[in-house]
């Protein structure tokens, strides 16, 4: 029990350090890309190069991802400060957000799926010719 708490804390600390390095990198090079995105790339590269092994961070990362939604709740509570605007202009706001989100979801999903299907079909045809 103590051992896994210790392991968990070290892994958490490690992820935190990578996040901070991402932030510093963004600031230092004046990048338009945010620190957390750089952190993702950095951790990916470290895993890819084999500098760190999956088992060495899986405990903490698994737990964080399982509860990813939680971290957005305190931020969302900030919506309470916009009460008045929503009472007066809420409907047009919502219409724009819902319709545009649905359009984006549809196009992103449909186009991706169509291209995947098309590519896979071409590969199959190619194999047929080869035979």
């Amino acid at each position, binding site marked *: 029990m103590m051992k896994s708490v210790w392991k968990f804390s070290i892994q*958490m600390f490690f992820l*935190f350090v990578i996040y*901070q390095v991402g932030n510093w990198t963004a600031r230092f090079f004046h990048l*338009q890309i*945010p*620190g*957390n*995105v750089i*952190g*993702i*790339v950095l*951790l*990916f590269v470290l*895993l890819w190069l084999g500098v760190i092994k*999956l088992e060495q961070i899986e405990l*903490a*990362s*698994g737990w*964080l*991802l399982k*509860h*990813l*939604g*939680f*971290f*957005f*709740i*305190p*931020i*969302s*509570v*900030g*919506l*309470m400060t*916009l009460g008045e605007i929503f009472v007066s*202009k809420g409907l*047009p*706001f919502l*219409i*724009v*957000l*819902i*319709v*545009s*989100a*649905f359009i*984006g*979801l*549809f*196009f*992103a*999903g*449909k*186009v*991706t*799926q169509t*291209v*995947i*299907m098309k*590519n896979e079909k071409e590969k199959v045809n190619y194999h047929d010719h080869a035979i």
Partner: protein
Amino acid sequence: MITLYSILITVSVYLFVRFLAKNYSSPVTSPVFLSTIIIITLLVVSKISFDEYMPAKTIMTYLLGPATVALAVPIYKNRDMFVKYFSAAFIGLSSGIVTTITSAILLAKLLKLSNVFVLALTVKSVTVPVATEIGRIIDGNLSLIAALVIITGMIGAMFGAKLLSLFKIHHPFARGLAIGTIAHGIGTAEAVKEGEVQGAVAGAAMGIAAVLTSIIIPFIIEFI
């Protein structure tokens, strides 16, 4: 004292909603949406303002950074798939971003919404920390931007999976990509529950969408 109370209600409401969502899955029990509504109600009833809730918020979102970084793990595990579907992902992501931004702007103009609102709409699909950064660059209203981003995320988390199924989008890669592109982190949290592939792709799509959007926005703003 208020901070401790705020943390306590936030965590217990979250755990309660999570339990509820496991047993009765519906758009309404989407964790971020329902928890937020219950917590706001509790805060209003206990006469706690958002300013007083702020320290609790800072403590609880402390781990959002490391949690975002942790998305590298599912991306790494599914790396072969990203190589395989690279062209599909790039085309799909770009069409999702462009259609959602243009439709939002056109609709807002049609409904005669003010320019401050139209400007904020351009970043509505970008993850919160990035959206506020872009907001600063384009001189937008930051609290309005945060609100639009969060509500968009909730819409995607609540209805995204259903909408994709309705339009026969069943490929796990395409589903994850759509949710991550449009509904960023809040959607990704929901995609993680649908499956590991969906979660990994959503996380990666969120990151790439953030980068792509910040590149596209200066061109779009010219037309507003």
